[in-house]
Each structure stands twice: as C-alpha cells, then as structure tokens.
C-alpha cells in the first residue's frame, strides 16, 4: 500500500517532465549555433542521396502558414529508417541571417537554415515563389532537381510518395490515394 503513493509520485514527476520538455520555450534554440551562421553551410556539399530544400520567406504569410507542415514533413523523414540518406535545408529567400533566425525561433525549426539574402541560391532554381520545396536527387554523383512542390499542407503524402518512401508513417490508403492523384 505504501508503494502505491510512491508509484504515483514517480508517474506524476514523469508526466511533469514530459510536459515541460514537450512545451519547451520555443525561443530557446534547439541547435547550439544558428545554422545560418555556420560558415560554409552549403547544401551542395551534402553527401546525402536526397536533398530537400524548403524555400521560405519570413514575411510571407503562406510560408508562415506552411511552416508547421514543413516541420511535419521533416519529422516524418527523421522518423524513417532512411533518414541518414536525406538532407533537409531551409533557404531564407531574401532573408538576412537575423530574419532567418526569427523564423527558426518562431516555428521551432529543427533543420538547418541558410540565409539567401541576395537570392543567389534561389536564382539557381529558376522562378522561385515561396513557399516552395525543391527535392534534389543524386545522379551520377551530382544533385539534380527531381521535383518541386509549393504549399505542402495538403500534399504531404504526395511528397512522401514522390520522394521515394523516405517519409513515415505513410499509410497504404494514403499511398494509394496519392498514387491515384499522380496518375490523373
């Protein structure tokens, strides 16, 4: 009988610890150094098979609305068995490092962000209208554009299907539905 209150104490503390960690202050960085400040951070140096680039603009309302959905895509990739084969970057279209950092803090972004203040990176991809996700795949040792998707909110399963199954969980029903859309 005396053990039951002790058990509840332990459960209570565990629940409290879980809540505190899950509701962590989003203004505290999850990375030790803002990724936009990492010298030489360049997606082209990635050794991954697949590189996902999320072009965003801190000031863009559609990007603000999309941010949590992009985070979801990132989490789904990170949850998968092939996460080491996928590199994920955010490209701050026309955003300074300060602005990129503001976006990172506000949306608790866990993937590296790169400031593209002068849009030099974006210019490599033709017309870029944010929000836009561009997926590159390695072919013959070089990264080549595989596909692009804008406004990911209702297209997450389609994205996961196109990227080659690196996202989880994707239900069979969702895969079939996404497959049907692609065929149409």
């Amino acid at each position, binding site marked *: 009988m005396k053990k039951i209150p002790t058990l509840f104490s332990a459960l209570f503390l565990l629940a409290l610890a879980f809540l505190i960690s899950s509701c962590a202050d989003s203004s505290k960085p999850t990375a030790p150094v803002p990724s936009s400040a990492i010298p030489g951070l360049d997606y082209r140096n990635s050794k991954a098979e697949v590189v996902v680039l999320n072009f965003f603009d801190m*000031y863009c309302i559609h990007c*603000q609305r999309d941010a949590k959905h992009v985070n979801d895509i990132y989490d789904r990739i990170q949850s998968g068995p092939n996460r080491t084969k996928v590199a994920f970057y955010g490209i701050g279209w026309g955003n300074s490092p*300060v602005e990129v950092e*503001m976006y990172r803090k*506000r949306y608790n972004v866990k993937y590296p962000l790169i400031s593209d203040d002068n849009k030099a990176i974006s210019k490599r991809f033709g017309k870029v209208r944010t929000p836009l996700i561009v997926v590159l795949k390695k072919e013959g040792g070089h990264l080549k554009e595989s596909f692009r998707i804008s406004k990911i909110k209702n297209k997450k399963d389609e994205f996961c299907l196109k990227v080659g199954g690196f996202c989880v969980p994707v239900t069979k029903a969702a895969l079939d539905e996404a497959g049907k859309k692609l065929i149409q």
Partner: protein
Amino acid sequence: MRLEKNSFSKHSFLNTMKKYIISIVSVVGFGFMASCAPNPVSEVTPDLRTSVYRPGKLKPIDSVAKLKVGDKAPNFTLPVVDGKTVTLSQYRGKKNVVISFVPAAFTPVCSKQWPGYNISLDLFKQYNAELLGITTDNVPSQHAWIKLMGGIQFKALSDFWPHGKVASSYGVLRSNGVCERAIVVIDKKGVIRFIKVYDINKRPALDDIVNALKAL
C-alpha cells in the same frame, strides 16, 4: 486493532489517491493550455497575390528629411482600425515605440512587410517596445487590406485626414500623398533614437530594428 488499522490505511490511501489525481489533472490541464502559441496568421484568402496593385518601380525616396536622432518625436493622435485612437505620448515613460511607415495598402512590398512583424513580436516584447504601423490610407481600406493579409498583431494607424499630417511632421510624406517606407524608433522619453527612410521599392531588413532596439 487490525480492523481499525485497515480502515485508517484505506482512508489514507483514498485521500492520497485523490490528491495525486487532482495534481496530475491540474498539470495536464495547465500543460495543454500553455502549449505552443497558435499561429497568429489565420487562414488567408488565396487572393492576396492577385489582389495587390503593382505600381512598378518608383523613385526610391521622394521626401526631405525633417528630423534626426536626438530630436523630440512629434506627438500625434491617429485612429486605429478597431475604432479607437492612439496618441504617441500615451507611451511616454512606459514603452519604447517603433513606427513602421509604409506607403499603401494593397501593394506588394507592404503586404509582405507587416506580416513579417507578426512573427517578430517577441523581439518587441523583449525590448518593451510597441510597434505601430502607419499609412495614409483611410481606415476602411486598411481594414480590408489587413483582413486580406490574414490579420496583424499590432496597431495600424490611419494618417488619412488631415491627409498625411503625421507623415509630413516626420518628414516621410511623398509628393503623391503616400508615406515613405520608413522606420522610426522612439525611446520612453519621446526622443528619436533611430530614423531611416528606405528605398520604397525594397523591404527593409529586420536587422535595423533589432540593432536600434538593442541600442536603447
């Protein structure tokens, strides 16, 4: 004795259980309410991009400076879209003030400037600063534009009538009656600590506001 002991233990156990259940429910409830703040931008209509008026490339700056750092900020009272008014001096002794003058509602650069401040409010809070947006549009126009942008989390003031009087007092009224794209930072004593007019065709980086607030 044994019966009494058992009754006492059972009663004590039930009381303890009740306390723990109440504690756990309280923590869960609080945690749920304290979870991440909702995205301040509500569902926006898909028409913002197609609804803005594109004026083409304009003369970058079309005004003559009247004020500089160290000057007293001209006081004003302007209407807000919520029907109230704001007087600059109401912040004296209480808060720093950042004024974002932008040219016009329903124009592309402005429509992608103010929504960015929505996600920067922690910055203003950190430095005890109130952000005020000012245009020379009338209140109904500002109201419609703000709705199209999905809402803003700071006060938008209309300098419509007397037309551009406040913008003019700050030296940021253009010859065609719209504001310059300008940022003014005013400290709690009502003194201008930063004032800059930007190229009207380009969105100013947040960096200047951050640095100006840090210097207060």
